[in-house]
């Protein structure tokens, strides 16, 4: 079975390490905050100017001056700091963030990512995504493997305008955990109950399968 949004978040959360500063994009990545493994400390960076994002406020705690990059009301964790947008992107561009997780429309075998624009249909803007993919070394993209109509989003070459070039090395879809190396996708894990054949069928770019591919564990 394909992973749910929550399961995708849960699997990515396994990649968190103690002491990591992490930027979580809007959508599925935001859910990862719910699955931080017990016994480790992680600090969440929100690019609008908050390091140490806490949970959502109770109704009494709501503060219009305290939001995250998704414009949701939030709280501050103990030890949080606040700064302006240039400082925030100094952290991001300067490579100080340990892990970035963000969504995408398409990813290709050369590590290109398209996530911000569908010409003629959707022009909302890149927000901080271009800075995040340019600045981070450790990026995980979360996305669905294919469209509802079965059209692959893991391509030989992205068709949409790029958010970043040659910057993606890890992709977690609802079907598989994939690494990108040497111009190819490498299948690392598959979602429980999903066969290698199903993944091959829905992956347009060249996919390397080395030996038995383990199922993800939760």
């Amino acid at each position, binding site marked *: 079975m394909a992973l749910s949004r929550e399961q995708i978040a849960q699997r990515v959360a396994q990649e968190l390490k103690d002491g990591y500063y992490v930027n979580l994009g809007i959508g599925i990545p935001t859910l990862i905050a719910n699955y931080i493994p017990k016994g480790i400390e992680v600090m969440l960076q929100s690019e609008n100017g908050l390091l140490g994002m806490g949970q959502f406020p109770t109704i009494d705690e709501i503060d219009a001056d305290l*939001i995250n990059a998704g*414009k949701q*009301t939030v709280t501050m964790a103990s030890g949080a700091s606040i700064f302006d947008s240039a400082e925030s992107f100094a952290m991001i561009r300067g490579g100080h963030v340990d892990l970035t997780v963000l969504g995408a429309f398409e990813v290709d075998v050369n590590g290109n990512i398209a996530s911000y624009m569908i010409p003629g249909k959707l022009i909302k803007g890149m927000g901080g995504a271009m800075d995040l993919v340019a600045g981070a070394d450790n990026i995980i993209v979360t996305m669905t493997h294919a469209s509802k109509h079965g059209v692959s989003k893991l391509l030989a070459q992205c068709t949409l305008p790029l958010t970043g070039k040659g910057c993606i090395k890890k992709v977690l879809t609802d079907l598989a955990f994939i690494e990108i190396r040497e111009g190819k996708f490498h299948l690392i894990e598959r979602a429980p109950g999903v066969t290698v054949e199903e993944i091959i069928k829905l992956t347009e770019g060249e996919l390397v399968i080395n030996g038995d591919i383990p199922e993800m564990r939760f």
Partner: protein
Amino acid sequence: MAGFDKVVSSYEEAMAGLNDDMTVIAGGFGLCGIPENLIAEIKRKGTKGLTLVSNNCGVDDFGLGVLLPNRQIKKIVASYVGENAEFERQMMAGELEVELTPQGTLAEKMRAGGAGIPAFFTATGVGTPVAEGKEERTFNGRDYILEEALVGDFAIVKAWKADRYGNLVFRKTARNFNPLAATAGKMTVVEVEEIVEVGELDPDQIHTPGIYVNRIIQGTFEKRIEQRTTRPSDQYETKGE
């Protein structure tokens, strides 16, 4: 006004000198920390042909979005513009010019503009539509593009507190682009929740020194919330508004 006292008493006075076809840099992220009353004053004045530089463009009836119905904005430089139906209509119809700019690049363009740096190299946007027409250079084996700084005829800023000399303190994530915008205006106008006497703000805690600020006005604020998300107790829960 005398000496360093920058306090003005009306919004009309605060935005005096703003004329058609000028460039205005605005602080704020989403609807958080936006200079909502200064924007309302631009609407009232009816200034047209403006180039707006702001991370976002408000929503249909609040923030910079209120300048759209009367076509006061000619061009907007922003990183994310997705919350606004009239905006989308004008953009698709070619009535509004939009220069999508990565958020970090936008912040740095303001910072550089205010700091006298005409341009800077960044890896953000290399190999994407953002790089089109821009000079590219390689440093230590990595490609970068040249981005030019931004300076506004006006900068409009929202701060929490100011003293009469224009020293500013921001509150929580309402800081965002505001301190950067404050440095990048030829005429920087700041609206605040509270004006205090000179000497009341701790010099160690001032976010923006008064040298960047030309006019200060005290206002009252709606502070609209875009996504009211709450938790019931100790659990995460999302409630869209």
